[in-house]
């Protein structure tokens, strides 16, 4: 069948016959074949979320072991080497394998629904991104579980990470695993960027996108810019370790500080990449429970972008003590202080939204609202460390540990748990238990603050980071015991969350399409959504398509039940980047073996590189090539049509 070169899309009503046709077109085959080949963004999103939560539990157990060792002075529960591997894996797991992927999961599931589209721009790339993430997570843990884990912290400073001081394979697992993970994050970021600019429903101009889209879009642009830096750094490290190059080795003329620059040029923007989408969740979720639109939408959207732009210019604040000249430090110090401004805009916008509305107290609301306070606590301690002279004392003490946990747990974990309560009905078709949710929230909130608020004081009393034990007589003993108790209470809270998810999955109350009375398009489709998301492509007339009657926004009304039917194939409509004018009808790819095969071939290649098994590496390389051929083999069906209009 030769597709028509041009075609005017049929405009029709949402009707059962249409839905039946679309279901046949979009449904993933049942059974294990469908499981491995699916490219449905909702399935992929949920896999991301589940995998990330499993890794959160793993990273949490690592943290509890650390906290037991530090519960009192001079304890010997762990050897120094075990301790060092544990804190390293805790950092790697939480930062790289939980915080970012879980947001990718939410965005993967939600984006097309928020945007009024039937899928992401590149569905196979989406599946590939997940499989590579899974492979990288297994790769990074393989060393640890066989007793060869990396032990130089997630920041992995050389020369300690070099072969002379870390001869085992731990650092090679880390280096190659990070290059592998970088592939997943990069293709995922590219997918988000194209999706944001091309896949929005007609009429959803760029100033009508939900803030979550702004957050993930901004984070994705940042990722695409900075991940090459860290991938390169880890690749060069692997070369130094295995082939005797000396990029970072002073004996050969290399520069240990080069590593720190490359790592933090990536590392600091990354911090914003793992909080901006979560801030977007709060910006979109909180107003639903305040029964009014977000205050200062444009300012919040702009501050999201501004944070990221400034975020590229602050990496040296991780290196204030490295002996760089005072004048250069002063620029980074200034930028690090100024970056609080866009964050403060968001905080006041959320506060104003609560005050200008009348909040309905649900578990999701509690998590979103408490995030504001945790964000402020993490923000002001960040403001303190932005001051160079103060940072010379604060850096590498537990004050920083407290700061970064308020930032990452406060602005990532709390919003993510809140977002789970909020979107769980959409994911599964069932509501989560609100009563257990209330217990869940208060246990997590009190446990977290009991554990980490006193830790600021531990830091001010001079306890250095990354020490496997400490002597009595420094004023740290009681504080550490309190922190250990708090961390266990927090862990019980997280456990309650997992229990609530499991319980609600089985016995939860059936959810309607729109349980919270939300404003955005995901609440216009059934819970859970059909594989094709939208029976007709909606046309959008405002920022809050489902609240138009109440708000009397704009001149026209969004059309949700009548629109392009696009049922002649697995079709979507792409739109123009700014105004979202309809542009083209695009045929989406079918479920495919190519993503998992390519990911598997890459994993084989990287495992072979780790063992320097060159024959296997060559085989892996050929398999990669073969999988790419399978992927890119021209399919007439996927030829793009010319513009639909005119």
């Amino acid at each position, binding site marked *: 069948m030769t597709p028509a070169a041009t075609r005017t899309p049929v405009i029709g009503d949402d009707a059962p016959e249409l839905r039946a046709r679309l279901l046949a077109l979009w449904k993933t085959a049942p059974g294990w074949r469908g499981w491995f080949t699916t490219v449905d963004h909702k399935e992929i999103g949920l896999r991301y979320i589940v995998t990330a939560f499993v890794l959160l539990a793993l990273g949490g157990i690592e943290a509890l072991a650390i906290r037991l060792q530090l519960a009192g002075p001079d304890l010997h529960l762990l*050897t*120094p*080497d075990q301790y060092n591997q544990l804190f390293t894996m805790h950092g790697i797991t939480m930062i790289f394998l939980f915080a970012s992927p879980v947001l990718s999961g939410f965005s993967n599931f939600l984006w097309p629904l928020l945007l009024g589209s039937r899928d992401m721009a590149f569905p196979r790339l989406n599946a590939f991104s997940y499989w590579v993430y899974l492979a990288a997570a297994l790769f990074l843990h393989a060393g640890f579980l066989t007793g060869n884990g990396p032990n130089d912290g997630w920041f992995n*400073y050389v*020369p300690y990470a070099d072969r002379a*001081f870390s001869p085992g394979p731990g650092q090679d697992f880390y280096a190659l695993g990070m290059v592998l993970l970088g592939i997943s994050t990069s293709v995922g970021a590219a997918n988000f960027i194209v999706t944001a600019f091309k896949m929005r429903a007609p009429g959803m101009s760029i100033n009508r996108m939900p803030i979550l889209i702004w957050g993930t879009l901004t984070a994705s642009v940042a990722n695409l810019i900075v991940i090459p830096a860290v991938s390169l750094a880890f690749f060069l490290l692997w070369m130094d370790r295995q082939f005797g190059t000396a990029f970072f080795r*002073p004996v050969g003329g290399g520069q*240990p500080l080069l590593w720190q620059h490359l790592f933090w040029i990536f590392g600091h923007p990354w911090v914003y990449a793992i909080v901006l989408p979560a801030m977007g969740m709060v910006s979109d979720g909180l107003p639903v429970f305040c*029964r*009014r*639109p977000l*205050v200062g939408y444009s*300012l919040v959207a702009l501050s999201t972008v501004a944070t990221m732009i400034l975020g590229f210019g602050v990496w040296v604040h991780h290196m204030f003590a*490295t*002996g760089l000249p005072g004048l250069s430090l002063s620029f980074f*110090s200034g930028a690090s*202080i*100024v970056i*609080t401004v866009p964050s*403060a*805009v968001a905080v*006041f*916008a959320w*506060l*104003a*939204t609560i005050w*200008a*509305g*009348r*909040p*309905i*107290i649900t578990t999701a*609301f509690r998590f979103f609202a408490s995030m*504001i*306070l945790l964000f*402020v606590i993490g923000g*002001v301690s960040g*403001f303190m460390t*932005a*001051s160079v*002279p*103060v940072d*010379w*004392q*604060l850096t*590498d*003490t537990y004050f920083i540990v407290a700061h970064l946990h308020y930032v990452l747990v406060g602005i990532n974990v709390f919003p993510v748990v809140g977002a789970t309560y909020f979107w769980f009905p959409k994911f599964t078709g069932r509501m989560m238990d609100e009563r257990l949710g209330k217990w869940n929230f208060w246990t997590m909130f009190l446990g977290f603050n009991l554990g980490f608020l006193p830790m600021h004081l531990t830091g*001010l*009393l*001079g306890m*250095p980071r990354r020490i496997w*034990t400490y*002597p*009595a*007589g*420094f*004023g740290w003993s009681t504080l550490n015991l309190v922190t250990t108790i708090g961390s266990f209470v927090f862990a019980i809270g997280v456990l309650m969350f997992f229990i609530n998810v499991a319980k609600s999955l089985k016995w939860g109350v059936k959810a309607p399409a729109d349980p919270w*009375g939300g404003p955005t398009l995901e609440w216009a489709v059934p819970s859970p959504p059909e594989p094709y998301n939208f029976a007709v492509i909606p046309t959008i007339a405002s920022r809050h398509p489902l609240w138009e009657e*109440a*708000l009397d926004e704009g001149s026209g009304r969004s059309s949700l039940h009548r629109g392009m039917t696009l049922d002649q194939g697995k079709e979507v409509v792409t739109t123009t980047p700014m105004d979202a004018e309809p542009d083209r009808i695009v045929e989406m790819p079918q479920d495919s073996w190519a993503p998992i095969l390519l990911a598997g071939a890459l994993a084989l290649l990287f495992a072979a590189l780790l063992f320097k098994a060159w024959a296997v590496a060559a085989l892996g390389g050929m398999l990669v090539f073969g999988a790419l051929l399978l992927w890119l083999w021209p399919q007439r069906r996927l030829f793009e049509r010319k513009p639909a209009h005119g």
Partner: protein
Amino acid sequence: VAVDGLGSGMTATPLAYLTSAGTRAAAIVPLTCFLGAVSVVVCLIIAMLLWLGIRRGHADTVAGPVVRGGDGLGWIKWGMALSAVPLAIGLIWTMAALGQIVGPPRDIGLTIDVTARQWWWEVRYPGTSGRGFATANEFHIPTGTKVLVRLHGPDVIHSFWVPQLSGKTDVIPGQTNLTWLGADRPGRYRGQCAEYCGLEHAKMALEVVAEPPAQFDVWRRAQLRPAALPVTADTQHGLAIFRSRCAQCHVLRGFGGRAEIGPDLTHLMSRATIAAGSLGNSTGNLAGWIEDPQSIKPGARMPGQQLSGQELNDVVALLGTLE
């Protein structure tokens, strides 16, 4: 007071940096307090606004009507206007303090070389006429004098930090970083490696003893002398054991040995701690350390010596003479 003689002569919180004992650290304390106070006040205000705002709400799972209400932008305007004030003060104060303490001042009275190794500190006092000396993990400075510290790192990255005298400066292989410090009043000030450096990063401490200039000169002259000549039978036997077992890594000036692997022991007994601040310097601790350092500081470069009881007694007797 800590067990084992650790922390003797120090405050109850030897690494706390909100108390200072020297000009460089002192410049940081008020700025830290100001930023800390602003931070606490901001948190309290936001917490209060949040609490009051939420109290207006109601527990209800049924979605209420959507109301546009006011635009609420006043919150952002006023919030930003009020936040700008402490931000600006913090920024200006930061730059002023940075300018004040960043570089070594012109009136440096003493220069020393500190070499950070896994997991101890070597400290060298370069002499004016080739009469320098080395010590380890504890060094003395005269009060009221600004001391320039040149930092050398032959293995991995460490960070030099004596909180009550000065903030951190990293010790980075391939480059010589400079820092400076000074003590206004006599005292014993604890320092600690502050950059993760491997297995025993936790047990890599140092102590700075600040004393009046006259007293410092006495110490300095004492340090310049070679090790005391052993006169008793047991210490002479101890020296023989030292030469066969210890001298591959340690130096006794006057009797040979090799520097750069382990600390210079010439005046070991003048130091209050051993094993880079891990243990008080007592006969029992010395014997325990020599026999089984790995149980005290697992991973330390020093191997257990498996000496007989008599040999151990004699070596410890020798060490006891190294005033």
